[in-house]
C-alpha cells in the first residue's frame, strides 16, 4: 500500500513527489538517535529529520551487529546449528530453539516425547515473562522512569535462577534440542517456581501502581503512537502490537502448537492501540504467562522420556523438504522457514522475527509528525530486538 503521510505543514513536496527538505534553509535538522542511544533497544540507529521538535521523516538503520546466522547455518550440520540459533534473539532466545528444533523434527520425521512438549511450553512461557519484564523497564525508562527497570531486572534475575537450574544456563539456554529437551525438571522445581512467580506478581503490583497509575506516564503514553487497525495486515503486525488494537491475534490460540490446546486461556487484547495500551496488554499478557506456568506445572506428566533417539548427529542427513514453524513470542509471530535438500546441512533457514516488520516499516510510518521526545518511547512500544532483524 502506498503510504501518503499527512504533510499539510512541512515539508512541501517537490514535483517528483519527494520531500523538499533543504537542510541549508535552517528549517530542518538531522538528528541521529542510536546506535548507542539509551532509547534504542540494542544496536540500531534512527536518522531523524526534524523541524522544530517535530519529526518530519525517520529512517531506520540496521547492520551494526555484523552477523549472518542464516548463512552460518548453511555450513553447519543440523546439530551444530542448535547452539547457534538462540543467539538470534538475546532477551527471548528460546523461540529460536523451539522453532528450529520443531522444523528439523518435522522434516526428519522425529516423534518428540510428550513430556518434552510440556517442558518446551514451560520454557517458552518463562522466556516470555523475562522478555516482558525487560520491556516494562525499557518502556518506563524511555520516559525517564528508571526505577521500574530496577525492579523488573531484579525479578527477571529470579526467573534466570529458575532457567539456570532447569537448563544449566541463564541467558542462552541451549536446552530445546532437536529430538526433545535436555533434561527433566530438577527436584523441587515447581515449589521454587511458585515462589518466583509470587515475587513477580508482587513486583507487577508495584509496577501497576507506580507506572500505570501514574499521571506522567499516562500523559506521555495515552493517545501517542496509535496504530490504526487497518494497518495490521498490510504491515504484517502481530502480537501485542496487534492485540492492543483490539484484534485477538495470538498464534497460541490461532494455530495451536505444543501443549497450548490443553491450557485454559484467552488472548489478551486492548482497544486504544496507543503506547499505553500496548504496555498494558503486555503487562496483562505477563500475568497470563504466570497463570499458564501454574497450569503447566500441575498438568504436565511427572516422569517419562524427554529425548527421542537420534541418528548419529555427526552425519545426520535430512530428506528434501521445506516447512514453516511458527510460535507466539512476546513480540508476535516468530517463525522458522527451513529448507532441506537431503544433505547434512540446511539448504536455507529463514528466520521471521517480528521486530523486522514492526521496527522498520511500521516505525518509519509512525514516527512522522511525532515529537522528538516521544521517539524513543514509540520505538520501545513496538518492542524491538535488533538481533532478530539482522539474522
Amino acid at each position, binding site marked *: 500500500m502506498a503510504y501518503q503521510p499527512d504533510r499539510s505543514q512541512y515539508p512541501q513536496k517537490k514535483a517528483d513527489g519527494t520531500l523538499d527538505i533543504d537542510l541549508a534553509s535552517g528549517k530542518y535538522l538531522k538528528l541521529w538517535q542510536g546506535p548507542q542511544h539509551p532509547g534504542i533497544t540494542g544496536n540500531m540507529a534512527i536518522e531523524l529529520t526534524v523541524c522544530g521538535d517535530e519529526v518530519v521523516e525517520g529512517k531506520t538503520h540496521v547492520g551494526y551487529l555484523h552477523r549472518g546466522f542464516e548463512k552460518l547455518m548453511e555450513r553447519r550440520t543440523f546439530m551444530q546449528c542448535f547452539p547457534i540459533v538462540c543467539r538470534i534473539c538475546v532477551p527471548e532466545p528460546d523461540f529460536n530453539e523451539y522453532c528450529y528444533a520443531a522444523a528439523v523434527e518435522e522434516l526428519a520425521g522425529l516423534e518428540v516425547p510428550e513430556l518434552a512438549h510440556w517442558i518446551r511450553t514451560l520454557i517458552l512461557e518463562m522466556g516470555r515473562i523475562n522478555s516482558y519484564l525487560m520491556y516494562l523497564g525499557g518502556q518506563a525508562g524511555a520516559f525517564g522512569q528508571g526505577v521500574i527497570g530496577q525492579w523488573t531486572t531484579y525479578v527477571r534475575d529470579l526467573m534466570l535462577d529458575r532457567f539456570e537450574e532447569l537448563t544449566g544456563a541463564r541467558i542462552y539456554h*541451549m536446552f530445546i534440542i532437536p529430538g526433545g529437551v535436555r533434561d527433566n525438571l530438577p527436584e523441587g522445581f515447581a515449589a521454587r517456581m511458585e515462589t518466583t512467580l509470587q515475587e513477580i506478581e508482587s513486583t507487577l503490583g508495584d509496577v501497576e*501502581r507506580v507506572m500505570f*497509575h*501514574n499521571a*506522567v506516564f499516562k500523559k506521555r503514553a495515552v493517545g501517542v503512537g496509535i496504530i490504526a487497525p487497518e494497518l495490521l495486515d498490510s504491515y504484517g503486525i502481530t502480537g501485542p502490537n496487534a492485540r492492543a488494537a483490539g484484534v485477538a491475534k495470538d498464534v497460541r490460540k490461532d494455530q495451536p502448537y505444543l501443549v497450548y490446546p490443553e491450557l485454559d486461556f484467552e488472548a489478551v487484547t486492548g482497544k486504544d492501540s496507543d503506547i499505553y495500551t500496548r504496555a498494558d496488554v503486555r503487562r496483562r499478557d505477563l500475568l497470563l504467562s504466570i497463570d499458564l506456568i501454574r497450569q503447566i506445572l500441575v498438568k504436565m506428566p511427572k516422569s517419562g*522420556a524427554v529425548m527421542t533417539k537420534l541418528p*548419529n548427529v*555427526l552425519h545426520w542427513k535430512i530428506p528434501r523438504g521445506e516447512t514453516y514453524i511458527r510460535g507466539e513470542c512476546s513480540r508476535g509471530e516468530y517463525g522458522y522457514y527451513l529448507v532441506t535438500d537431503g544433505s547434512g546441512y540446511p539448504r536455507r533457514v529463514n528466520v521471521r522475527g517480528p521486530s523486522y516488520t514492526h521496527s522498520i516499516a511500521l516505525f518509519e510510518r509512525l514516527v512522522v509528525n511525532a515529537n522528538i521526545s516521544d521517539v524513543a518511547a514509540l520505538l520501545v512500544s513496538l518492542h524491538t530486538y535488533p538481533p532478530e532483524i539482522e539474522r
Partner: protein
Amino acid sequence: MSIRDVLSPFTAWKNLFRDPVTIADPLNERPGAARYRGFHKNDMDKCIGCGTCETICQNGAIDMLPVSGVPAKLGDSGLRPRIDYGRCCWCALCVDVCMTGSLTMSNEYKWVESNPDLFRFTPGVDKKHWDNAELGYQRHAEKHLTPGERVEMPELEPAARIGSFTEIVDGYSIEQAKLEADRCVSCGLCIATCPAHMAIPDYIKAVRDGDYERGVQLLYETNPFSQVCGRVCTHRCEDSCAARHEGDPIAIRWLKRHIIDQVPQEKVLELIGKPAAPTGKKVAIIGAGPAGLTAAFDLARKGHAVTVFEAQAAAGGMTRYGIPEYRLPYDALDKDIAVITAMGVDIQYNQRVGTDIAMQQLQSDYDAVMLAIGLHQGRSTRIPGSDHPQVRKAVDLLRQITTGEKIEAPKSMVVIGGGNVAMDIARSMARLQLQQHGEIRVTLTALEDKAHFLADPVEIKESLEEQINILDSRGPQACVIDDSGKLLGLKTWKVLSIFDAERRFAPQYDESDEQIHEGEMVVEAIGQMADVSLLGNELTEKLEWNRGRIQIDSNGRTSENWLWSAGDCVKGPDVINAVADGHRVAISIDSVFTQQEAKS
C-alpha cells in the same frame, strides 16, 4: 486521569526501607546450579583421543593435541582435546557426543586470569580448581548423540545350520548396512589397529553414501582379500573402535563384506584397472595363501612377472584348507583369487617346492623368491597313546574335509584345545556326525578356564548352540586304549594353573580330579608349525633363525638377499597380518628392483 494517578506513584517510596537485593560478592558467594554448564573436565584415563568432541564443536573451540605422558596406543590416539574459551559457547555438545563419557562439565563459572593465553587449556591435563567438582552438567544415556547398539546380523538359527556346511552369516541388507555405517564417528582409531591400515572410516562412509564402487576401490587399496576378511577377519580393529566404549563397536568386518558383496565381479575388475606394463623382472612365490597372493597381486600390478608355486590343487592356503565352509564359502574365496589371477599372476598348482621343484632352481630362475608356506603341520601333545591312528591332527582333518575325502565320522570324539582351530574342527566334525549318525557327541577339553578361553566368544557361543560339550580347565594326560588296541577316549586332570611365576608354560594339575572323556577319536588342536623341509640342509644352515622361525627384517627379507618370507610361517597369526606382511614384502622386492634398475 484521576487523583489516584497522582498519588499512586508515591507508593514507590516504600522501597526506601527494603534491603538491597544486589549480592555484594556474587563471585564468591554464589555456586552455579547443580546442572550448570560450567568449565570442562576430562578424565584422562577414560578419554581415548577419538576427537569426536572436536568434530561436533561448531565453534572450532577444540583442538586435539599430543600431551606428554599420554602415549598413543591401540584404541587411543594419545591426543587430548584442548579447549579455547575465547571460542567456546558452553553448548555442551562435546559432552553429549563424547564417546567415553570422559568429557564432563563442572558447575564452576568463575575463573580470573590476567594472561588470556591461559584460557586455552587442556582439561584433565592442566590442573584446575574445579577438577574435583562434583556438580555440573550431566549427560544421561539417552542423550548420547550417537547410537550405541549394533544392527544385528541375520544368521541361520542353530537348528537350521548344524546339519550342513551352509554359510551361517547372511550379510546385511542395504538398509541394515546403512544404519550400522551411520553409527561410525569417523575417528580413525581403528585404522591404526588394523595391520593393513585399511581406510575403514572412508569405506564406511561409502556404505552410508551407497557408493559401493568407491568402497571397493578403497578396499583394494590395502587388501585384495576383502571377501575373506569381510567374513573371517579376526577384526582386532573392532576392539579399538571408539563406539565400543558406550555400546557395541561398529561391525567393521560385516560392512567390508557388505561392500564387496554389492559389486559384481566384472565391475570389481574394471574398478581396479589393468596392471602396469611388464618390467621384465620375475618373482617366484612359494605358497598361494593370503601372504603369498597379496604380494603376488601387488607385484603383478607393478608389472613384474609372478609365478606362485602351490602344493595343493587350489589356492587360498589355510583360508581354504583350514577355515570351514560354513564360515567362509569357497565361492567367496574364489572371487578374491580370481581378481588376483586376472592381474596375470600364474599359479602352478600341485607343485610342492622341495619335492617337485628345488629351491636352488627358483633361486637361479627368478630375480626374487618369497616364502609364504604357512603352518601346515599339526603339533602333538605327545601324551601316551597319541600315536594311535585314531588320534588325529585338526589341520589334517580340516584339509581332508576341504579336499572332499571321505571321512568316517566317529560316533563320539574328543577335541584337545581351546582355540579357534579347536572350535572349527569340533563344529565341522559335529556336522559330519549329525549327517552320518543323526546325533552329535563331541567333547572339547581346554586347558584354560572359561574366563581365559583363547577362542572368540562368538565361536564359543555358537559351539554351545551346536551342542558341543565344552569343558574348561582340563589337562590331557593319556589317550585311553583298551587291550584290543581300540581307542576309548581321553584321560584328563583338572588344571590348577597353566603358567609358573615367570609366565613359562608349566601346568599344575589336581590329580584327584581325573576324568575319562569317551571318544572313538581324539583330535589334537593345540597349534601348528611350518614344514621347512623344502629349504634343504644347505639353505637351512645358511639362513638366520629366530626361535625356530626364519629371521626376517622389518621388510620381510631373510638373511639371504634373494629370499623374502611372510605370513604365518614367520609371523602370523591371521589373514589380515598375512596380507599386511605380503604388502611389505612386495614393496621391498619392488624397491630392490628399482635400485637395481638405477644401478644398471
